[in-house]
Structure formats: C-alpha cells, structure tokens
C-alpha cells in the first residue's frame, strides 16, 4: 500500500470552505425541507448551482468537460453535503453513475455521455439491485439478449436512486452467466419508471421496469468492474455519512451545553456527557476509515479492504449518533420541526443502500481471507 497522508492540504481546505459556503447559502436546512416535500425531490436551480460549482463534473476528465479530480476531492464535497443532508441526484448521478461510466465506459462512450453528465445537463443513475438483500447480486433476473447487434433488456430494477429524474439509466443485466452494464435512455420504448416513497425523502428511488428495451450501448467489463464501481460508491457514501455524523455531534453537543434541567446544563450530567464523548470517538473513527478509503481508491487490493471497512464503520457510527442525538434532545428531537429526524432517516437509509454493515463485513472477511 502506498504512503497515505491524512492532513488536509490547502487545496482540500479550499474545496471544503467553498463547498460549505455555497451549501449554507443556497441549500441550508430550510431549502432541504422545501425540496424534500416536492414531488420529485429534485431542485433544478440547485442542480445547476452544483454544475456551476463544477461538482457535477468533479470526477469527469477535463477532456470531457469535467474538473478531472478524484475521490479525494470528492470526499470533501460529499462530507459537506452529508452535513446538510443535501437532497437530489448528486450521489446517484455525479458519483455512482459517473464512476460507472469512467470505470466501465469506452472512450467513445465516455465522449458521448460524460460531457452532458459533467455539465449536469443529463442526470444519470445506476440500476443494479432487484431483491431486498441481494447486495451481492447473486439473484438478478433482469437479462439482456443481443439481437442483430442490438441489446434488448427485460426485467425490473428496484431501489434505483433518483431513477424518476434520470435521463440516462445504466442498467445491470444478466448476459448468459455473467453480468453486463447497459446504457438506457430514459425515453426508450418499453421503459417504465415509477417513483416509490422512501424513508429518506432527501434521496429518492424509483422502480424501473424494462420490457424488451433497446439499450443505447453496453459498457465494458462485467461483475468485477461492477464490483469496483460499488466499492467506490460505498467509499463515497461513507464520506457523506461522516459529514452527517459530524453535524449530529455538533448539534447534540451544542444542545447539551445550553439546555438546562434540574438547574444544570444537561451536558454536565454524565449520562449525557459520556454519550457525547462516545459520539465524538465513534465519529472520529468513522472519519478515519472514510478518509482513508477515499485516499486509496487507486490501490485495488487496499480498496477491497478499505471500502467495506469504511462502509460498515461509518454506517454504524452515523446511525448510532443520529439515534442518540434524538434521545439527548428529548421530545423536541422527535418533532418534525427539529432537524434531528432528517439525519436519522438519512443514516438508516444510507446504512442499507449499498449493503448493511453485516454485508460489508462479509466482504471484509473475504478481503482478509477470514
């Protein structure tokens, strides 16, 4: 494993400060609540703001109109977005789908689709899961058959992040015994996309039904390439989770400092004080694994360890912190008006989206050959 450094560079600090400033101005929790209650949970104004900031193209090579940056820089943006439970298809499109195209797309395919994705003009998403606990993709049924040089897809993809606002769907389908990833345009005949209500209303999902849909292209690489895309997605999600966890810690500590009971700030009671300290420790641990993973994405072997490590540790830390935050806030933390539930919903949902902690630990066991 190559030498890794964790101390933030000036560049990263700059990305963080500009990201935080933009989000606090344009996407504070008031905005989040508004977008959260809209039909499709996608605010085009905000989205074009992301594009102007260069985030939609952050990972995209400069040749295709992107910033040509990597997961290290991305991790900082996601950290800040997690902090404010930023709504919309950023994770689905600018992270997962973009990563898929970069990892699996031919140069022609990248040239054809990446520019529009980088500019934010087209929203893309990856349609991969079908069964509720089949994160290992062992029971996929959606299949692709080649007829006269064109691939036709049939099946049903569930849990497709922001599929209802996607212009491009990258659909995983069985090809014989293997898997393939296919590009499907949202307006293709035979394609039915229906949004489904979700626990975390800041990150929507759709069910995608394909009835003999003609794919615009097949990306390269099968299961292993796809696995790498999912590993990278998990790293990105972990970075987002630690941002949320850090915010939960800060708001909880702030409340514990000021809220009085029995004539004392509740933070002076060890029941609260020690839980805040444990929260700090868990959040620090989560940051460490997430930041580490974001720094080793080019090291295939290390990524196989770092990704599930980050995913399992960050998921548990965030969910625990979000839950304890409500407990420490008491009744007020249980109200719709308070911000606490936004983080609880994000934390629980994120802990399941790409695999629950047990699944990630099973990947880790494999990587460590335990």
């Amino acid at each position, binding site marked *: 494993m190559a030498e890794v450094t964790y101390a933030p560079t000036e560049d990263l600090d700059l990305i963080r400060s500009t990201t935080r400033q933009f989000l606090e101005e344009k996407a504070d929790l008031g905005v989040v609540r508004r977008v959260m209650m809209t039909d499709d949970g996608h605010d085009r104004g905000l989205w074009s703001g992301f594009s102007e900031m260069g985030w939609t193209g952050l990972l995209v090579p400069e040749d295709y109109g992107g910033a040509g940056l990597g997961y290290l820089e991305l991790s900082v943006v996601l950290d800040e977005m997690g902090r404010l439970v930023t709504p919309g298809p950023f994770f689905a499109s600018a992270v997962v789908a973009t990563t898929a195209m970069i990892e699996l797309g031919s140069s022609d395919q990248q040239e054809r689709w990446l520019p529009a994705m980088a500019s934010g003009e087209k929203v893309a998403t990856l349609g991969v899961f079908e069964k509720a606990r089949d994160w290992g993709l062992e029971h996929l049924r959606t299949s692709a058959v080649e007829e006269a040089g064109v691939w036709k897809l049939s099946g049903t993809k569930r849990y497709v992040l922001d599929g209802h606002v996607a212009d491009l769907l990258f659909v995983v389908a069985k090809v014989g015994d293997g898997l393939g990833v296919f590009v499907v345009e949202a307006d293709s005949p035979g394609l039915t996309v229906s949004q489904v209500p979700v*626990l975390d209303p800041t990150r929507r999902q759709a069910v995608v039904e394909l009835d003999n849909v003609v794919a615009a292209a097949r990306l390269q690489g099968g299961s292993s390439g796809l696995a790498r895309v999912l590993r990278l997605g998990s790293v990105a999600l972990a970075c987002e989770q630690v941002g949320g966890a850090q915010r939960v810690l800060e708001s909880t500590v702030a409340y514990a400092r000021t809220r009085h009971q029995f004539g004392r700030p509740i933070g002076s009671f060890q029941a609260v004080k020690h839980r805040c300290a444990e929260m700090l420790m868990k959040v620090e641990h989560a940051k460490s694994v997430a930041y580490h993973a974001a720094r080793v994405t080019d090291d295939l072997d290390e990524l196989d360890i770092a990704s599930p490590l980050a995913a399992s540790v960050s998921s548990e830390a965030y969910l625990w912190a979000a839950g304890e935050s409500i407990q420490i806030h008491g009744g007020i933390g249980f109200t719709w008006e308070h911000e606490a539930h936004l983080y609880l919903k994000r934390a629980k949902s994120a802990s399941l989206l790409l695999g629950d902690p047990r699944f990630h630990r099973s990947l880790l066991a494999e990587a460590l050959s335990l």
Partner: protein
Amino acid sequence: MTDTIERRVDTVVDELLATHPPATTSDQELWGAQYDLGVAWVWHPEGFGGLGLPRKYQNQVNRRLTDAGASVLNRYQNLLGVGMGAGVLAAHGTDDQKRRWLRPMFTMEDMWCQMFSEPGAGSDVAGLATSAVRDGEEWVVNGQKAWTTLAHVAKWGLLIARTDPSAVKHEGLTYFVIDMNSEGVDVRPLYQITGEAEFNEVFFNDARVPDENRIDAVGAGWRVALTTLMNERVAIGGNTVPRGSGRISEAIDIWRESGEDDPVLRDELVHLWAEVEAARLTAIRANEMADAGIPGPEGSTGKLAWASHNKEIASFILDMMGLDGTLYPGGYELVRPTSFDQRTPQASFLRTRANSIEGGTSEIMLNILAERVLGLPSEPRTDKGLPWNEVPRG
C-alpha cells in the same frame, strides 16, 4: 369472603346485562347504567361509579361484560379520562366535582386530555412555566403545553399550572380541570418525525378557569400530578403479555416471510427474542411478587426494557428487510392519524425512537432504579430549595 364479593359483583353485572342487553343497548346507555350500578370503577365509593370494592374485581366485571358482547372501549378511547382523570378526581376531587365529571367521562359524552408536559418535554418539573393567576373567582392561564394526546377532541383537560413562581419548583403548582372549548385555549397539531400528529400543542392566552375547577389545594398540583404520572408509567411495560407477542412477533413474521437463513441475522433475532422473553418473564414474576406483597424493581425495569427493546427490534427489522427498509410505503403526510395499529415497520422504526423519552426518559428511569431501588445517592442538586423563578432554565 372473596367469594361473597365475587358473587355480589356477579349479581350487579347480571342486573346490568338483564336491564341493558348489549345487543339492543347503545354503548353510551350501557356505560351510563354501568356507572349508576357502581361497576364502572368498582373501587370508587358508591354513587361515584363504584361499590367501594378492591380494585381487582374490576377485571371480573370487564371480563363478564366483554363475554356478554358489551363494549369496554371507553377505557381505551377515553383513556386519559377513564384511565387517569378518574383516578385523580377520585383521590383529590370534591364530591361536586366527581358528580359533575365522572359519569359523562365514563359514558364518553365528554372526552378528556391531560396537559402536563411543555415544549422541550423536560424531565424536570422546573420546565413547567404555564402560569395561572388568580382573578377573583377565576384563574387566568397563560403558557403552552405539548405532547397532549386527544386535546383536539377533548371537552375537558387536566391542567397543571404554576400559581406561585416564587415557591420552590414543586410547590408552586396547582391542578385544574379546564374546559377545552373556552376562550383563549388554542389546540394545534404537533407533528412528529413520522409526519403524524399523534399529539397536540395547546396554547393558553388569558384562558379563564373558574376556581371551582381547581383540584385539591392551591400549591398541591405536584402531589396531584404524581397520581397520574404513576399510573402512566405502570401502564407502560408493566403489563404482562403472551410470549412472543408485540414487536418481536413482527420481527419473527418478517424473518419467516423473507425466507432468510443468514446465521448472523438469526443469532441477532434469537438474541432479541431472548431479551424480550426475559423482560416478559420478569414482568410476570414481579406482578406475582407484588400480589404476594413482595415489592420489586419491575415497575421501572419494565419501562426501560420495553423502550430499548422496541428501538432495537424496530431497527433490526429494517435491516432484515434490507433495501425494502429504505422505502416508506404511503410516504410522509402531515396529518392527524386516525389509528396507529397499522404502522409500517419503517414508520415504527421512527416512532419507537420516542419510547425512551415519553412517559419518563430512560435516563430518569435509571435514576429512579438506582436511587429508589438500589438506594444509591442522588446527584448534588444545585437547584435545591431555589425559588422556581431563580432556577436556571432553557
């Protein structure tokens, strides 16, 4: 002895059922007759819905009525009245007050609510800031209450308000019954993290309560309130249920439906089942000990265990559901729910977060266990003896 009482109760119930056959009598009529015959709350004095009998005979009454197809829903649908308010009135009310309120409460002509908590839903009585200022034969109420169920349908509200800000925090409180329809009482839904408004906020803006609606003495409010609080906590957790019922049964159903056989999930599921069963057996054992006159710690452990098990199981259920756990069938709507029986597992995951806060936070329950049961010393109290208006709050 017991037998004679049982026989007496049976005779009364026989009469009730004979004169008011459930099949042909409206619930309200039947409940009225039940009250008049003294089998509404058998332990109340005669004339106030009771016969002055030991409390346990009420179970006999309810069993027989249920068997006969008569409704006992008033005990649940008007819980804060029939379940708690009645207790307060019986213990602290004047005969006039009992005469005025108990019968329509039992017949559900009047719904009741309880207004105790205030915003921030503190564990500390010092949090109670709603004031009542005397004005001749009336009291003028100002302030805000929170977490009140049924306030939007209630005719009467049990209200605790601060009548002497310069007294130490427990002593400056007085207990009232307020007409929820009176001027200056504003009930608004309090939306919770599920989007439902199970509770209300109630705002008092110069609302007036006649002094005759005061329960017990001025400044006796805390003592009166304890009567309800205690009933509330015993109500949660303490009751005994059949094995494998409640939330753990949902978990087991979902496990079986899913056809899962992951050994790690199985071990966690069985672990939860075992903990729930241990708590259940503890409740049964404690009730028995209590009957045998041996007091135990169960009152508090039951509520504690119930809260943490509910939270753990509800979260574990979503894990078992995998990606289905990230869905939210029905979506979020800011509404006053009509029923809570059919919550989805996802909604339950959210709702259960409050279990360790409502009816006494788990932290308070641990204090109670440690101090009252184990006899451990209490925290040093910085606010001891301080006049309420000098206690740091916020």
